[in-house]
């Protein structure tokens, strides 16, 4: 089959059960779509498993399933998201990401042209991040049993000598840094949900943060904790860390940046941006003496331009995250309960 035929098929065809059947159709899909776009020496070995020499040092392994609706959203799509999500999980372990694997679950009837767009986006994200997808898997489920495309990625990374990111290294007196604005991803997704479309310029912040983390750790290897505030937002993430480390936290609302359009959407929908998901932001907890240095490094990086010191770790009230409000009062910032729901009144 020549390449002209293939691209014609991708323009008009759709996923069918034979693409997961293990026969020729599946082999062609893998060769002409996945290998063609994601190509790298390890993937090109063409095995079900990638074989490589492990690097020296402690390894970090992480996996993340991506199910998102809609699959394409302002600022990204499930393809790049599935790369960024796992690269970030590895980076938040303090590690340099090395390799990714990808498992696709495709729904019968899904347009091949859209699948190709997703794979191309994934390839671009992997290439920009410098983290190749070295092996993968494809399955097809019957129509109605999936939601177009599900992608699970697994990442492997290596931790530099001297770096030790752990929640139990969080201590009273340390400061909490946040790399940028809150809620962009969640609101970008909501703006395209079927029953809630509104016109906005808000784009998802989806991005791979290992470059930023690498620079931060190079300057301050003693960073206690890193975490990307994804689902549940910065509020749930900090609650998780405060509980794990048995410390309190006090935030300053005035230092937490929210884009005006995100804030407006949240006001209209009755959502609290502190609970809305992000895909390209990180929280860093470090010694007070390192905070200014880290802040400078973050602000100089394209993914940390709006970084700020948003609060501090305190003694007592273990597991409790509080915030001085913009108004000057104090409030508890709790875990997210269930899903955030729009108000009625």
């Amino acid at each position, binding site marked *: 089959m020549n390449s002209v035929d293939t691209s014609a098929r991708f323009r008009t065809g759709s996923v069918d059960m034979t693409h997961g059947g293990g026969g020729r159709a599946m082999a062609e899909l893998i060769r002409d779509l996945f290998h063609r776009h994601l190509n790298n020496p390890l993937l090109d070995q063409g095995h079900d498993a990638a074989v490589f020499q492990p690097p020296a040092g402690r390894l970090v392994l992480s996996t993340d399933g991506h199910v998102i609706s809609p699959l394409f959203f302002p600022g990204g799509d499930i393809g790049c998201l599935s790369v960024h999500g796992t690269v970030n999980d590895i980076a938040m372990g303090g590690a340099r990401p090395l390799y990714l694997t990808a498992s696709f679950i495709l729904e019968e009837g899904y347009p091949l042209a859209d699948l190709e767009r997703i794979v191309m986006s994934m390839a671009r994200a992997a290439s920009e991040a410098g983290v190749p997808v070295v092996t993968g898997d494809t399955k097809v489920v019957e129509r109605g049993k999936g939601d177009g495309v599900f992608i699970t990625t697994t990442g492997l990374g290596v931790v530099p000598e001297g770096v030790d990111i752990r929640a139990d290294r969080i201590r009273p007196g340390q400061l909490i840094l946040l790399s940028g604005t809150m809620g962009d991803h969640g609101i970008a997704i909501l703006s395209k949900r079927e*029953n*809630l479309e509104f016109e906005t310029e808000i784009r998802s912040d989806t991005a791979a943060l290992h470059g930023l983390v690498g620079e931060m750790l190079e300057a301050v290897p003693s960073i206690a904790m890193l975490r990307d505030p994804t689902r549940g937002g910065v509020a749930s993430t900090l609650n998780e860390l405060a509980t794990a480390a048995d410390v309190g936290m006090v935030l300053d609302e005035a230092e937490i940046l929210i884009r*005006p359009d995100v*804030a*407006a959407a949240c*006001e209209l*929908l*009755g959502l609290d941006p502190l609970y809305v998901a992000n895909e390209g932001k990180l929280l860093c907890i470090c010694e007070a003496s390192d905070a200014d240095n880290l802040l400078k490094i973050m602000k100089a990086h394209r993914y940390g331009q709006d970084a700020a010191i948003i609060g501090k770790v305190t003694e007592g*009230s273990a597991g*409790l995250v509080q915030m001085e*409000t*913009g*108004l*000057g*009062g*104090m*409030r*508890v910032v*709790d875990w997210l*309960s*269930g*899903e955030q*729901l*729009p*108000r*009625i*009144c």
Partner: protein
Amino acid sequence: MKYVDEYRNRDLARTLADAIRREARAERSYHIMEFCGGHTHAIFRYGVQGLMPGNVKYVHGPGCPVCVLPVRRLDDAVEIAEHHDVILCTYGDMMRVPGTKQRSLIRAKAEGADIRMVYSTLDALKIARDNPERQVVFFAIGFETTTPPTAVAIKQAKAEGLQNFSVFCNHVLTPAAIAHILGSPDVQETGAVQIDGFLGPSHVSSVIGSRPYEAAARLYRKPVVIAGFEPLDVMQSTLMVIRQINEGRHDVENEYTRVVTRDGNTKAQSLVNDVLEMRDSFEWRGLGSVPDSALKIRDAYQFFDAEKRFEISQKQSREVKSCECPAILRGVKRPSDCKLFGTVCTPENPMGACMVSSEGACAAYWTYARHQTIAEAKAKREQKPEAVA
């Protein structure tokens, strides 16, 4: 953000707090009922109570539409969804409210009922148009704020001849509730609730205006100040209520002038009036049966009335026994008075509606002040045996 940041300004908050401190007389206390859950939420979210002097206390009112819906009506909605093979459309807040035996819409959905969360009545109409072979029921709840959209949906359905659309109407009215609370034995006889004045409804008043509260304010000699939902609105209105109390006045004043007029949105009112009419009485959770406090669909539109389209069985509906929601909705108790609060009743496993809705008092206490509230509740529980002895 324009029109929002101005109402959350720290310096103005400090100025207002100082003014309230000067106005509030040390020799007395001021118990101000904020009617709406939106106010309760603002008070907690922005830490407004902490900026008040100790003798100014907020009493949380019943203005949470999800909270005041009696369990029976929720059970009816679950039954419609489960037994009549309909698509039931509901606002999100309603999904997790527990009915009899903890049965909620979300549980019915998990077990196969077709229940969909919508953001507006227009979504429900669209679902009806897209599914002509299915019956689509809109579970209409809320105060006067959400009533006009329901009326519009029914009118639209009639205009389009949408045969498969109907509304399960549970709209309730705030002035009747305020009058009922002020006239209740809790306030008039036992003194279980002390109310010196009201922060009047915000969004509701944008529709009905400030005039409908005047009768109750006059009759029961309590000041009402229509208050916006932003924290500075709440603080400014609090100051206005305290001034009225000090001056012995009981007027209806309007702090929320940027939205509310005395007559309200007359176009919306006439739309509602076209489609809906007063029920003789309606059961409110916590308040009991309140005359002239809810709306039903007029006969001219009865084709779209789900209560007439579907047979709904008589059933025994029961709330969780120890749940104090009813007393909390009347202002008689606080969430910290409930022995279920924070023990068996949490947002993940709610026993009553007040813990579900973001406008519910229990949810506000849980979200913004639960450590303090649980400590208070625990202290009360430990005190009790001694008190008996």
